[in-house]
């Protein structure tokens, strides 16, 4: 029902007004949505609680696997036997699904200590230690088999058990994180 006499200039001004209002409304809506999305991220308390944890290796006997937590995630600390290290080192890296040499998965000179995340890279179940065809881990959920270096050998898991960030603070003590 626009007046016939309306000029083109007025048309432009009106269109600009509508576009500006629509744009401002869209900006308002988008800024209002952000807090609702942002609150889903880990809160300050959770982030702060993820501070590095120290772990004393002394009580872990050879052949033993110990479970501990960092940031709520399960971590295996495995004191490997000589045989276990040997088979891990001698494996043909090229034949692996996720080719990784054993040496890059442990700290130099500390090859008896394997530290890996404790959730299967398939869908997150906890694999059973000293089990499976390679005597590393066997995931009870879908049958993924890991070797004594935590590398995927059989089953549906796509990658090796990842190594968390850690370092030796002394000969028998590691700090994870």
């Amino acid at each position, binding site marked *: *029902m626009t007046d016939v006499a309306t000029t083109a200039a007025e048309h432009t001004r009106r269109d600009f007004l509508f576009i500006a209002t629509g744009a401002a409304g869209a900006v308002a809506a988008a*800024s209002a949505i952000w807090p609702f999305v942002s609150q889903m991220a880990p809160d*300050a308390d959770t982030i702060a609680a993820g501070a590095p944890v120290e772990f004393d290796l002394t009580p872990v006997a050879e052949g033993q696997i110990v479970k501990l937590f960092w940031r709520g995630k399960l971590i295996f600390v495995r004191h490997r036997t000589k045989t276990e290290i040997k088979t891990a080192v001698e494996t043909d890296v090229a034949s692996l699904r996720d080719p990784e040499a054993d040496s890059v998965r442990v700290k130099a000179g500390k090859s008896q200590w394997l530290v890996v995340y404790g959730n299967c890279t398939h869908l997150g179940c906890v694999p059973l230690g000293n089990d499976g065809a390679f005597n590393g881990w066997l995931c009870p959920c879908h049958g993924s088999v890991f070797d004594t270096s935590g590398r995927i050998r059989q089953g549906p898991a796509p990658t090796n058990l990842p190594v968390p960030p850690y370092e030796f603070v002394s000969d028998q003590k590691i700090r994870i994180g």
Partner: protein
Amino acid sequence: MKTFKLIAAAALVSGFLGGVAQAQHAHELAIPPRNEWSFAGPFGKFDKTQLQRGFKVYKEVCANCHSINLLAFRNLGEAGGPGFSQGQVKALASTFKIKDGPNDAGDMFEREGRPADRWPSPFPNKQAAAAANGGALPPDFSVIAKARTYPRDFPWFLVDMFTQYQEHGVDYITALLLGYSDDTHGVEVPAGKYYNTYFPGNIISMPKPLNDGQVEYIKGADGRSQVPETVEQYSKDVSAFLMWAAEPQLEKRKETGFKAIAFLIVLAGLLYFTKKKIWARIEDHHSQA
């Protein structure tokens, strides 16, 4: 407008009734004086140096009896707070022994504090805290600046809505700390209790906590503290610190609020003209709202 007149009349009547009813009260509570706060008003920000001083007062005096359970060491280094460096926070935390455990042997043990730890309570539990203080439990300080107030009568509580006066709690705490007096104004004070002008009922279990010169402030280049080391200054500083502890996101809140309101005013203006344009399409349009 008729509406306004009637509401104003109702307000006046209620104000009158209130005045009469108030006069019936035998003893009046002293009203805490208002202070200037850097964090008041729409653009309020905490004064970092004041928060640091207030923290020192809390740490050296109040913390002997009053817990502040929700305060983590890391908070002291977070944005909008006293602005300690990460190193200072770490160093401070490590001076505390934190009870942790149980370890693999099932024993509780003590370890060095970390920034993520909460401020340790001076007493193992509430009962112990009360027992050590003549049966009176020293309240936790986490949100105390928001948990204390004083009554604002008509029409002041309405005025506060527009002036954004929200510092009732800190004004009360400051007044309380300054409210100790030897002159008890005829109030009988039992042994082990103290007279305080601003405490409801005037009899408080806490002895006068602060004295001039008790807390040493950081010295400036001339070898003197930048602010007087007096009870009045201590009281204001520790009150400001408690306000921050109770509302650590205050600065962010006020900043965000300004942005939100400024933007909404622009949007409202745009919508107003859009609305006018659209309603102008009506052929027989007159001066319709």
